[in-house]
């Protein structure tokens, strides 16, 4: 934790006449939400440690438009998309990595038709790639032997069929990976998707995040792993609701890896 983070921006890179290997799309949560900022930093620590040449857009980044689109505001979404595409194309971005499945899905699937063609990958896939290439080695460290369960984010799993990369990473930590009764394609939403994050739930018997947290607690984990800043918030709230903050932690996979390596 001692060394400070090296976070070049695309503008700085361009000034030096360089093109990074990958553009890190931080996302709104990753930039502004206090909990999600920790995920962002954990991921950057790994990038720094493994000498990946990356850059962020910084103040030139803007919302992908995902929450507007899911809420039904196609106008606002496309305005955001076209502005972002203009910026990305100006920097000739090719490969984009992001720790937010909502940004991931939108950039990957909905931007191409509007003129933004990029190779977009989720940070769990990216980290898996670093391990496969031998650029990153992972050992259990403080997590050795812990029980960890993984909550599939809808926009990563069902929406884009990324199920294995996050699980492979968790398994690298010498931990016991336990599956909830609803997982992978049958996973249950955390309750944040479709712009629900930004409004109160409709009346019902229960909040969705509480239901999902119960799924997780059923397998008695030490840690609930997530791969989405919104899932992270929802599950953390669920744990608080069940008054289990003392015994169960919610952590992003990037944090697990960064902490295991004492980064």
């Amino acid at each position: 934790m001692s060394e400070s983070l090296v976070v070049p921006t695309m503008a700085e890179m361009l000034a030096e006449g360089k093109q990074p290997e990958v553009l890190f799309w931080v996302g709104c949560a990753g930039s502004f939400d206090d909990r999600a900022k920790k995920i962002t930093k954990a991921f950057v620590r790994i990038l720094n440690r493994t000498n990946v040449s990356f850059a962020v857009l910084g103040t030139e980044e803007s919302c992908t438009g995902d929450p507007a689109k899911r809420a039904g505001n196609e106008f606002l979404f496309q305005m955001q998309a076209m502005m972002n595409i203009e910026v990305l194309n100006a920097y000739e971005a090719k490969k984009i990595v992001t720790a937010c499945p909502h940004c991931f899905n939108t950039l990957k699937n909905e931007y191409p038709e509007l003129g933004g063609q990029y190779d977009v990958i989720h940070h769990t896939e990216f980290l898996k790639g670093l391990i496969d290439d031998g650029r990153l080695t992972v050992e259990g460290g403080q997590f050795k032997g812990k029980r960890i369960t993984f909550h599939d984010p809808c926009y990563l799993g069902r929406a884009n069929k990324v199920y294995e990369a996050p699980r492979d990473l968790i398994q690298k930590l010498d931990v016991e990976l336990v599956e909830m009764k609803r997982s992978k394609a049958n996973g249950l939403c955390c309750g944040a998707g479709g712009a629900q994050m930004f409004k109160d739930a409709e009346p019902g018997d229960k909040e969705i995040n509480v239901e999902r947290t119960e799924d997780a607690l059923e397998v008695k984990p030490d840690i609930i792993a997530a791969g989405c800043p919104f899932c992270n918030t929802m599950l953390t709230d669920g744990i608080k609701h069940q008054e289990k903050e003392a015994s169960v932690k919610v952590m992003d996979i990037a944090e697990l890896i960064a902490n295991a390596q004492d980064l």
Partner: protein
Amino acid sequence: MSYLDNILFAILLIVGFGFFARSVKKIIRNINLGVDVDRKDNSKARWKNMAMIALGQSKMVRRPVAGILHIFVYVGFIIINIELLEIIIDGLFGTHRIFAPYLGVVYDVLIASFEILALLVLVAVIVFWIRRNIVRLKRFINPDLKGFPKSDANYILYFEMVLMTLFLLMNATDLHLQNVPGGFSHFHKAGSFPVSQFIAPIFNGMSNELVMLLCEAFWWLHIVGILIFMNYLYFSKHLHILLAFPNTYFANLNPEGQFDNLESVTKEVKLMMDPNADPFAAAPVDENAAPAKFGASDVQDLNWVQLLNAYTCTECGRCTSSCPANQTGKKLSPRKIMMDTRDRLQEVGNNIDANKGVFVPDNKTLLNDYITAEELWACTSCNACVEECPVNISPLSIIMDMRRYLVMEQSAAPMSLNAMMTNIENNGAPWQYSQQDRLNWKNEN
């Protein structure tokens, strides 16, 4: 020899198929009320989907009990239709078991397998009935499945029970008469009857004439039953036995998370963002263009695949039982979205029929009169319903199109969402933070 039977039979067939053709035409017309969407690309992947999902039932077996029983009924249905071919020929030409002499042993095998399947169908249908009416699985007693849809499911089961029983009784009487010493009428030895041989003894002691009368009665009831059943499809969720095939063929092939980018919006946004565009120029006039309406408030605003989805829905409730909103007691039920869409489409269709081919506005819409905004706003767009549907229906796409209408045509989003959207517009983030602070995390501890 009298041809009365054959003529009566022919009339029956013509009437039965005639009505059926009329229903099919109506369904096609109603589906075409929808907006066009291109689903002709990638025919290879489409055929594969159809083969795996509709023909191969691959998504059914995700719930193994229902899946396997359903396969019995499905295979039974297909195979017994082959038998129907013989019945029709016999009926039209006054022959009896016309294929028997040509097929020999193969015929025995065929009849035997029909019988075993008929028995399996009977067993499956009885278990289905028990699950619905005695075990009362949650998704079958949900409040969105009341009235006709609930009875409809049971009618279908009774129909199948009766049809299979008639089929076996028909064979049993036939077998009984085949075994009359010295032969009786046209009942020659043909076929092998592993199931109905156990039923045949109940006719012992009856006169041959009576058994023959029964045999004919069973035969007629069976074929009439089938014709009625076929025409019942139009009113029933059982329509899925036909529409599952085109529905899986035309289903969305894109990743589930990819929502369509409205083209009409793209044009306007491009114009807005183009620095060279003259802001005062009148929009180019396209004589044929209907006034653009964003999103959907009624069935005519949906695309034809969504309408085909509505007719295909089997009302099985798998979507609803996996929906996080529904499971936590919210009003949203993706099954209800599909049923409402079909009911409204049917209503619009009847309106057109009653008004000589044109739709006369009836002051009703799918939105509000069938589906409420509360249901629509409860969706997390998680795609659980889409993943779960055994015939690849997307209730989510309808929900999204209706949300678009609420937001873009009516500005009727919940307040908190309006605040979120204003933030995006002003700050480029759903929260009220300045875009200039985007990189602050870098230097924070």
